[in-house]
């Protein structure tokens, strides 16, 4: 899965640079801060999100876990700058997010590849749009290799399976070297086996590149498998109810050992409690 050069890159970011070439640091993930964020679509419906305050450290993998309709996608859209919050702000590396940028890229549940383009053309778009066409020839094969799809570069996007298409979408998001990757349930349409593979691969790739990864899910196992930290959201209005750190080493995240099961059960317990709270007549705080 990993490009060897890329692996070497990563191990050397903290080590001494080679004497001849001053080593350019691998673009690491950005710091993300959400300050007093609130939003409502229609005033009559009340707020969808309220008083959101949290920080995500550079290179951290954070899962937003919550029931359907609690505002996860809304929050992610605001992190990506594709929508603006009614209240508060999203701050990335000290700057308020004003709009979308290839530096923080969002991936959706559907791969949404452009069906009239080849895989390579799809992947090249971010570079093409940002005036970096010169890098396409080297960068596109690099990211396709990263997602294990080098052999498919010249295929039409429609000829690929759902899992392969989602990998292309991942490569397309990675090509312009983003600092933050935002995933909105990107694996939910895939079969269990493909999903497991992609969950692991995406986590490894993000960690390898030092990316900050924010992942929306309503699958507890997915959150445990992928995230360093899980923010559990409650609904009506969407708020952060729990902030859970998942301390599992990489092998334990495969989900076969007791430690995984314990983490899973603990998170499941919290999640059900949070989910129950918003069905209760009088909301309580925990």
């Amino acid at each position: 899965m990993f490009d060897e050069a890329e692996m070497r890159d990563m191990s050397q970011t903290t080590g001494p640079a080679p004497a001849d070439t001053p080593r350019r640091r691998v673009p690491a993930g950005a710091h993300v801060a959400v300050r007093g964020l609130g939003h409502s679509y229609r005033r009559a419906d009340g707020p969808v999100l309220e008083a959101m305050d949290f920080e995500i450290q550079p290179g951290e993998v954070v899962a937003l876990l919550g029931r359907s309709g609690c505002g996860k996608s809304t929050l992610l859209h605001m992190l990506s700058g594709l929508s603006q919050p009614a209240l508060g702000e999203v701050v990335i590396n000290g700057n308020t997010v004003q709009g979308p940028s290839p530096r923080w890229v969002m991936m959706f549940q559907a791969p949404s590849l452009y069906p009239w383009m080849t895989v390579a053309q799809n992947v090249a778009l971010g570079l093409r749009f940002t005036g970096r066409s010169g890098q396409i020839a080297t960068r596109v094969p690099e990211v396709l290799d990263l997602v294990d799809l080098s052999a498919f570069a010249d295929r039409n996007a429609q000829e690929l399976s759902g899992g392969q298409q989602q990998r292309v979408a991942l490569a397309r998001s990675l090509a312009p070297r983003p600092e933050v990757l935002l995933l909105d349930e990107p694996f939910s349409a895939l079969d269990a086996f493909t999903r497991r593979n992609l969950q692991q691969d995406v986590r490894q790739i993000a960690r390898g590149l030092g990316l900050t990864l924010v992942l929306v899910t309503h699958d507890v196992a997915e959150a445990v498998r992928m995230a360093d930290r899980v923010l559990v959201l409650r609904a009506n209005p969407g708020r952060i109810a729990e902030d859970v750190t998942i301390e599992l080493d990489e092998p334990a995240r495969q989900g076969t050992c007791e430690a995984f099961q314990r983490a899973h059960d603990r998170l499941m317990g919290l999640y059900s409690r949070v989910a129950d709270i918003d069905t209760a007549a009088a909301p309580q705080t925990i």
Partner: protein
Amino acid sequence: MTAVADAPIRAGMPSLARLRGPLNAAIGIGLLLGLWWLGGRAVADNPDLFAFANFAPEPTLRRLWSMLGSGEVVEMTLPSLYRVGAGMALAAAIGVPVGILIGRMARLREITNIPFQFLRMISPLSWMPIAVMAFDTWDGAIVFLIAVAAVWPILFSTAAGLRRIDPAWLKVARNLGANPFHMLFVVILPAIAVDILTGIRLALGVAWVVLVPAEYLGVTSGLGYAINDARDTLDYDRLAATVVVIGVIGFALDSAASAAIRKFNWVRDTH
């Protein structure tokens, strides 16, 4: 088991299947010529219609052959093609941008809906007197009539294509840093190329139909003029040959448009 048993039969199929299309086309052409011939016989046998016997296939095709040799066919076709080309270009230059705008903006679509549907239902030929007054040249008037006829299919087809665009395509592009120019030329136009071309194909059909009556007025060149002229000079085999030319060129234009649609169609069969 069945797959094995079927194999030899399947292997024999492709050559037959390949012949089937041309064979059916030949049958269709044969039937048309046969009907034409029967019609010609009936006319020749009828004492009242005897004067029109030259409409039959044999004199018509003989005359067509000589018109092809003398260059007369090219001479009468070129002005018509120019008028249709100019009218279509004008229609596309208006229809595509306006179609994109009304496809993108619900408000504009609602505002323009009734006026556009109203204008669309007016036969383009009813603009003829106005066109004649408004334009200095006959050519200008004819191009205008063709454009008026052709603009609607292009406009509506473009707008319909736009509404079928996956909103995620626009979001992804915006996220990856696309500016409005990229949005239009990299995402929107390729996505709706087939819809635009389908509109152009429909428009071409309408334009070609409008062309001939439009050329009945004023001008002294083109296919419509040639028909009128042949009628006035009682030159019925030339008239029928011109009709054949109109049909053949119309068919060729339509085939070209449908080939372009096939080329730009990005939808793959998913088995």
